[in-house]
């Protein structure tokens, strides 16, 4: 199992903050492609070129390789401070 978290604008657009999925994705890119196949709003929202990814609380990329038990987060560029 992997846990997936969505934040800020993404969470609102997707109407989802958190979900669990069976693991079995070689890369985060594969996971994103699967999610986009759910259709709208997933397709458009996850196509944003500025999408940021974190694996287990560390910044990652579409090339990161999730393992069983990992927490993967998707969010827009950060705007704190």
């Amino acid at each position, binding site marked *: 199992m992997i846990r997936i978290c969505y934040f800020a604008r993404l969470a609102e657009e997707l109407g989802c903050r958190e979900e669990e999925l069976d693991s079995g994705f070689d890369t985060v890119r594969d996971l994103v492609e699967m999610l986009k196949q759910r259709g709208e709003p997933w397709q458009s929202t996850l196509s944003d070129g500025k999408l940021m990814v974190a694996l287990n609380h560390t910044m990652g990329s579409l090339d990161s390789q999730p393992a069983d038990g990992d927490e993967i987060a998707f969010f827009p560029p950060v*705007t704190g401070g």
Partner: protein
Amino acid sequence: MPGSVRIQHEDFDIGAEIRHFQQSRTEIGAVATFTGLVRDLNLSDKVSSMTLEHYPGMTEKSLQEILEQAIERWQLIDAMVIHRVGKLLPGDQIVFVTTASAHRGDAFSACEFIMDYLKTQAPFWKKEETASGSRWVDARETDSDAAERWK
């Protein structure tokens, strides 16, 4: 390990924080601070309030890593970040960063470095409420540029 991070809803008292931070450490010669406040004007719409969302767990970890990088790079004696989350009003304090060093150049550079990295690497998101509705704040190109120069 020096360097402390606090994420909180409540306001903070800069005077008390600095006093506690400086006290009884006479090897400190220079303390720099930065405080970020909610401005009432942004993109020419009146902002009535702002809500800060964050990623609990990752926020603390990423800020702690930023502090450790700064402490090592500028041989700081100590560094601290306080960042608020939740609903804030114009004039409210959002973020406070302080750095202590023997010399002022190190304290200044480290404080600015921490802010620049926080702005681009720490998972916080601002939503502004105005008379015409609410909107997520867009990341600014100038912030990425500011962070780039430390590489």
